[in-house]
C-alpha cells in the first residue's frame, strides 16, 4: 500500500506530517513551515478538486496542488 499523504485527506480530516518524498519540494515545504510532527488539516478543496487548502499547525492556511500535497507523507 502506498503511503498516506496529504493529498488523500478528506475535507476536515487531520494528519501529522511524517516525512517528504521529494527532496526539492521538501525544502520549499520546510521553509513554509510544514515540519515533520506538525499537524495539518484539509480545510478546502478548489472546485475542480485541485488545488487544496490545508491548515498548518493551526497557524495559517496554505494552498497547494495535489501533486505537491502528495509529497507530504503522514503518520
Amino acid at each position, binding site marked *: 500500500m502506498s503511503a498516506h499523504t496529504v493529498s488523500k485527506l478528506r475535507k476536515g480530516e487531520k494528519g501529522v506530517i511524517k516525512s517528504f518524498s521529494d*527532496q*526539492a519540494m*521538501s*525544502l*520549499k*515545504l*520546510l*521553509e*513554509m*513551515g510544514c*515540519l515533520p510532527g506538525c499537524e495539518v488539516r484539509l*480545510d*478546502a*478543496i*478548489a*472546485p*475542480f*478538486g*485541485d*488545488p487544496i*487548502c490545508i*491548515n498548518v*499547525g*493551526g*497557524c*495559517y*492556511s*496554505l*494552498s*497547494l*496542488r495535489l501533486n*505537491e500535497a502528495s509529497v507530504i507523507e503522514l503518520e
Partner: protein
Amino acid sequence: MKQGNIKVALVGNPNAGKSTLFNSLTGLRQKTGNFPGVTVEKKSGTFRIAGIDAPVTLVDLPGTYSIYPKSKDEAVVMDILANPKHPDFPDVVIVVVDASNLQRNLLLFTEVSDLGLPCVMALNMLDVAQSMNLTVSAVQLAMQLNVPVASINARTGVGIDKLKEAVKQLLEVQKKPELRYFYEPKKEEIALIGEVKQIYNLQNDYVALQYVCQHDNFSFLEQPARTRLDKLIEKYGFDENHFLATETVARYEKIKPIVSKAVKSSGATEQPYWTRKLDSILLHRVWGYVIFALVLLLVFQAIFSWATFLSDIVDGGAAQGIEWVKSVLPEGVLNDLITDGILAGVAGIIVFIPQIAILFALVSILEESGYMARVMVIMDKLMRRFGLNGRSVVPLISGVACAVPAIMTTRSISSRYERLLTILVTPLMSCSARLPIYTILIALVVPSTQVLGFFSLQGLVLFGLYFLGLFGALASAWLLSLFIPRNEPSYFMLEMPSYKLPRWGHVGFMMYESVKSFVLEAGKVIMAISIVLWVLSSYGPGDRMKKAEQTTLTKMSNAPQEEVDAAVASARLENSYAGQFGHFIEPVIRPLGYDWKIGIALLASFAAREVFVGTMATIYSISGDSEDVPTVKQRLLQEKDPETGAPMFSAAVCASLLMFYVFAMMCMSTIAVVYRETHGWKWPLIQLAYLMVLAYGAAFVAYQLFS
C-alpha cells in the same frame, strides 16, 4: 556613529506586514524603481530617526520565506545582503516577524542573523496572535535570540518609535559583538568554509556557505569565480541539496525551544473565525465561481461605465484645451506640431487614466483583502491546462484595461516560464483602447435588434469579441507551451493570507503607481509615435501634397467651406508619406479586404489603437466632430469600393477588421514593456510575429467567410 547615508533594509516573509511597515515608516517619502541590473521592482524611501541628522534610507527587499531564492525577485535579497559593495547594502536589517506564525518566521530571521548583519526584529501581528489565543513575549525572544526586539503594529503605527530607537542603538555600537551562529557548520563543511573564506577574504562562515550554494545568483561574482567555486564543491564532495535540507531542519531544532519559551497558548490555536467562514463560501464549488463572476462583472462595469464617464470628461476637456492652444498660438508649422502632434499625443494618453486608475484600485483592493489569493486557487487548475498558473489571473484581468501595467503585474509569478507565457498572451486580452474600434465597426454591420427580448445583439457581439480575446490568450498559451520547452517544474504553493480590510492609503498609492507607470512607460511611446505620425501625415514627397490641395480647391470651388476643408485634409493625407505607405502596403492587406485608406489607419493605430477612429475620420474627410461615432458611421456607410462599386465597409471587411484588432499586437508601448521585462528583443519580436500571423490569418478567414 556613522553619519549620513545610513541604509536600512526590510526583510521578512510574504504577508508578515513588511510593506505596511515600509509605508508607516516612510509615509509618502518613497519611490519605486528597479534594483540595478535586474527588473525587480525596488521600493525605497527615507525616514527620520531622532538624534540622527540625515534622513535614513529604507529599502524594502522582496518578501521571502528563506534566503534561498525561489524566484528572480527573491534572488535580489541575497545578492544585496552578501555583497558589502552593493549600493543598497544595509547598515542595519529590520527583520519583520509575524508573531502569529513565529516558528516559520524565525527561520528567515536566524538565516539573516547568521550572515553577521546587525539585525533588529520588528515583532508584528501580535493582535492576530492574540485572536488565535497566543501570547508572544518580546522580552523572551530578545533574550533567547540575543537581538533587539520591538513589538509593533505596522497598521496602526504603534511601537514604530521603539523600533527606530533600536535601529539607532545598533548604529551607535562601536564594536560588533561576537556572532553566535544559529547554524553551526558540520565537521565536513568546516574545511570548505575555511578555503572559501580565505580565497574571497570573508569573515563570516555563513556568508562563505552562501558563496558555495548561491554563487550562480550572485551578480557580483565573475564567471572565473563561479567556476572556481564549482571546483571547490567537487573537491570537497559538497552535496548542496542535502546540505539545504539538513541546515533547515537544524535551524528548526534550534527554533523550537525558543518558540516554546516565548509563546504561551491559552486554548486551541485556530485561524480567525471570519477567514474560515469566508473561505468555505469563496472556495465553494458553486458559490466560489458565482462570486468571482460577480466580482468580474463589477470590475467590467467599473471600467466600461463609470470610467467611460470620466474619460469622456477628460476627452472633452482635452479637445477644448487643444482648440484653445491652436487659437492663441500663431498659425504655422510649429502650431500644428504642438497641437496636432504633441498635445494630441498627450490627450491620447490621459484619456486612459480613469480606466487604469479604477481598475488598479479594484485589483489592489482585491489583493489587500486577501481575496485575490482565493481567485488564484479556484482558477489554478483551469490555467494549468494551458501552461499557465493560477497567479496568471491578475495580469489577464488587468489586461482588459491596458496591457502595459498588466505585464508589470506578472512579476509576482515566481516561475520564469509561466511568467513568460503570461507576458506573451496578455496582449490578447482586449484592452480598453480597442473599445472605440469595436464600437464603430459593430455599429456599421450589426443591426441594433434585441435577442430573446432583452439582449442587444450589438452588445452580444461585443461580449463575444472579449471572449474571443480570452479564448485566444488561453489557446495561444497552450500552443506556445508546446514550442517553448519548460525548464523548471511548475509550483503553486501559496500562503492564504487571512482576510483583512484594505488599507485605503495603500490602495491609493497602488493606483498612483500604476497610473504613473502607464504615463511614463506607455506615455513616452505613444507620445513619440504621435509626433512621428504627425510628421508622416503632414509631409509628403516633393510638392505632391500642395498639388493635390490645389486640384481639390479648384474642383470644389462652389462647395461650402466646411466640406472643402475636409476634402483638402483628405487629399493632403492621401499624398503624404503616410498615404504613400498606405498605398505601399495595399497589396499585402488586399486579401483581408482592406484598401490603402484602411492601411493608413492601421499604421496610425500602432501608436495607440484608439487613434484608428480619428484617423478614419480624417481619411474619409469627415467634417465637424471627427470623434463623433454616428457621424463617422454615416460617412463610412457611404464609402464605395472603387473597383466594384459595392459598399466598402461590407460585413466581410468589418468582420475582418474586428478579427484583426482582436488578435493584433498593435501597440508599440506593449512591445516596449515586454522588451524591458524580458531583457531583450527576442521575446517581444517573437510575440509581435506570432500575433501578426494570428491577426492576419483570422482576418483573412473572416473576410473569405463573409464575402
